[in-house]
């Protein structure tokens, strides 16, 4: 009996030591560089606290178990002259170490369930945004405003290929962030155009899969204005790692200003597109815009060289589709090919961009067909419908 008491004392001192050590590690870990972010919403704070609580509980359990084990490793070794006892069971103690973990688990489960139920309550939202993932960009549509746009990686290719200095927000910058107001309950409808993606913004503690054909709902309410970054969190193909999310949260007044501006911009763009349909453009103009559009929207699959990826993505260089029948070519770019990775670009690009990129394809990489595709040609195909 004395032995056991001594053991117990030793174990406690071991555990205390272990505990202090862990604490110092975890204090270190408070910095966001090595730990979960506390985030910017009430829910994310709850999640963070839950995370830390279960983490500490696990540390304590680990500390106790390992301390016991190392104590016997140190003292019950043959080289120390330890003689093996021959006991091999005790119902009482077995029941004890079944019951105690159950209690610990219940203690963990209660706050977890509470937080979860709060997280899944999407009712009474002030604003709804439809978030659609597609290979490899996000599309945002505000259900209450006539605003929708794509948001894609803004990091230049040279930085990825180590040809240029990497910027501060390397791989975490987009061309057009999602803009949200503070203090409003915002509901997200998350879905996908092609494969499964996941919309993840750590600061909001939101991660929701974007399943093609189904809509998942989630919500947030952010109190502090700021820029919050996240990225796609479900393997979605080649450029899964290049699909960041940026959310710019503004005061409601600023948000309203922004929204008004967007509505105007989109109206303007539409008017311009209609005007462009009447005009013809020169080869230089088309090729310039075409190359830009190609590199931002097509090159990730068909490659800069236009050679595609053998076995997965067809080459455009020398392709029959690209060098022969113009309307068929316009059609596949505008409407994509259902059930393949080739998307419908009519809703992603303006008609002038479409005209330009198609012209570019027909004249780049030695395709030299000399064809000029004007906005009017594109509009004609689109109006003819799928």
């Amino acid at each position, binding site marked *: 009996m004395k032995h056991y008491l001594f053991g117990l004392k030793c174990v406690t001192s071991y555990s205390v030591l272990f505990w202090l050590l862990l604490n110092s590690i975890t204090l270190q870990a408070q910095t966001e560089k090595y730990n979960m972010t506390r985030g910017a919403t009430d829910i994310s704070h709850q999640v963070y606290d839950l995370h830390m609580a279960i983490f500490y509980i696990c540390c304590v359990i680990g500390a106790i178990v390992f301390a016991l084990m190392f104590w016997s490793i140190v003292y019950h070794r043959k080289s120390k002259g330890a003689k093996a006892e021959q006991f091999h069971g005790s119902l009482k103690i077995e029941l004890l170490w079944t019951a105690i973990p159950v209690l610990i688990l219940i203690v963990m489960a209660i706050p977890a369930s509470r937080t979860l139920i709060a997280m899944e309550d*999407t009712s009474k939202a002030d604003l709804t945004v*439809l978030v659609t993932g597609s290979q490899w960009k996000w599309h945002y549509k505000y259900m209450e405003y006539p605003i929708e746009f794509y948001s894609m990686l803004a990091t230049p290719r040279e930085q990825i290929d180590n040809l240029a200095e990497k910027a501060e927000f390397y791989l975490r910058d987009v061309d057009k962030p999602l803009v949200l107001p503070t203090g409003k309950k915002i509901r997200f*409808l998350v*879905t996908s155009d092609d494969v499964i993606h996941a919309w993840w913004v750590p600061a909001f503690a939101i991660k929701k899969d974007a399943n093609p*054909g*189904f*809509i998942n*709902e989630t919500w947030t309410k952010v109190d502090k204005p700021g820029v919050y970054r996240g990225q796609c969190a479900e393997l979605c193909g080649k450029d899964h790692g290049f699909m960041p999310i940026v959310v710019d949260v503004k005061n409601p007044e600023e948000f309203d200003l922004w929204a008004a501006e967007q509505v105007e911009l989109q109206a303007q763009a539409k008017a311009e597109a209609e005007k462009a349909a009447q005009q013809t453009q020169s080869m230089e103009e088309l090729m310039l815009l075409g190359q830009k559009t190609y590199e931002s929207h097509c090159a990730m699959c068909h490659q800069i060289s236009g050679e595609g990826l053998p076995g997965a993505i067809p080459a455009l260089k020398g392709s029959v589709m690209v060098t022969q029948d113009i309307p068929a070519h316009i059609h596949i770019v505008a409407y994509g090919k259902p059930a393949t990775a080739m998307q419908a670009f009519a809703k992603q690009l303006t008609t002038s961009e479409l005209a330009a990129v198609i012209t570019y394809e027909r004249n780049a990489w030695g395709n030299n067909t000399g064809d000029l595709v004007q906005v009017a040609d594109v509009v004609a195909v689109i109006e003819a419908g799928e």
Partner: protein
Amino acid sequence: MGAAYQKYYVPHQSSWPIIGAIALFLLGYGAALWINALAKDQHGVGIFLIVAGFALLFYMLFGWFSNIIDESMEGLYSQQMDRSFRQGMSWFIFSEIMFFMAFFCALFYARTIAVPWLDGSGNNAMTAEVLWPGFEAIWPLTKTPGGIETQVMPWEGIPLYNTLILLASSVTLQFAHMGIEQRKYTQLGFFLLLTIILGITFLFLQGQEYVHSYHELGLRLDSGVYGNTFFLLTGFHGLHVTLGAIFLTVIFLRIIIKGHFTPERHFGFQAAAWYWHFVDVVWLNLFVFVYVL
């Protein structure tokens, strides 16, 4: 464990397993090549590999089973060995049940979860509203969210006959078994043959049903999840009936030609019979869940 202490027969080296492994390799590699070629409307070497694989597989099965039968006839097998075979067969059938489970669960999931969700049940109101506005959840799914339409395969015609046929075949097989146990070999032969004929009739009718389904009902493998589950479940079942019928035929030939099996030793027969009953039970589930409900 009465006879557990008899010598356990450990067979000689055998070349059949490696031949079997090569056969499966040819089948797998060939099928992969073939399917990819098919998808591109090409021809390839795949189909030849498949044929070679099947040939080798049958050669292997024939050789392997002859070895086993010879050993059994030589009396190398103890009761313990017999138990190993029986237990092995039971676990094999269990694994087959789990295989069918996967497809049945796909059916249940599609029917009670996916399709209603697409029509907005549960917390999926927005799914229906935004993505599939015109879609209505019904089962059988005669119009998919994507707009493919089919008709329903009724249960009253061929499926009902087929159910009766398979049920009858289980009964006739039971009579055949009684034939063995009572050493009534004519009864055995007759009822076994009848079972096989019933099995083949089933397959024939199933084929008719497929033709009807493709040509008159527009119910096809690719017409949405109703067609998918219908054809995969009935298809894999049909495949198992085919295997079972071949199995029974081999047993039949062993009886007729070689005069194998006695009341005490007829594991081969029993394995085939278990398999047949298992296929039967799968059909009953199919009949209820795929056709009737």
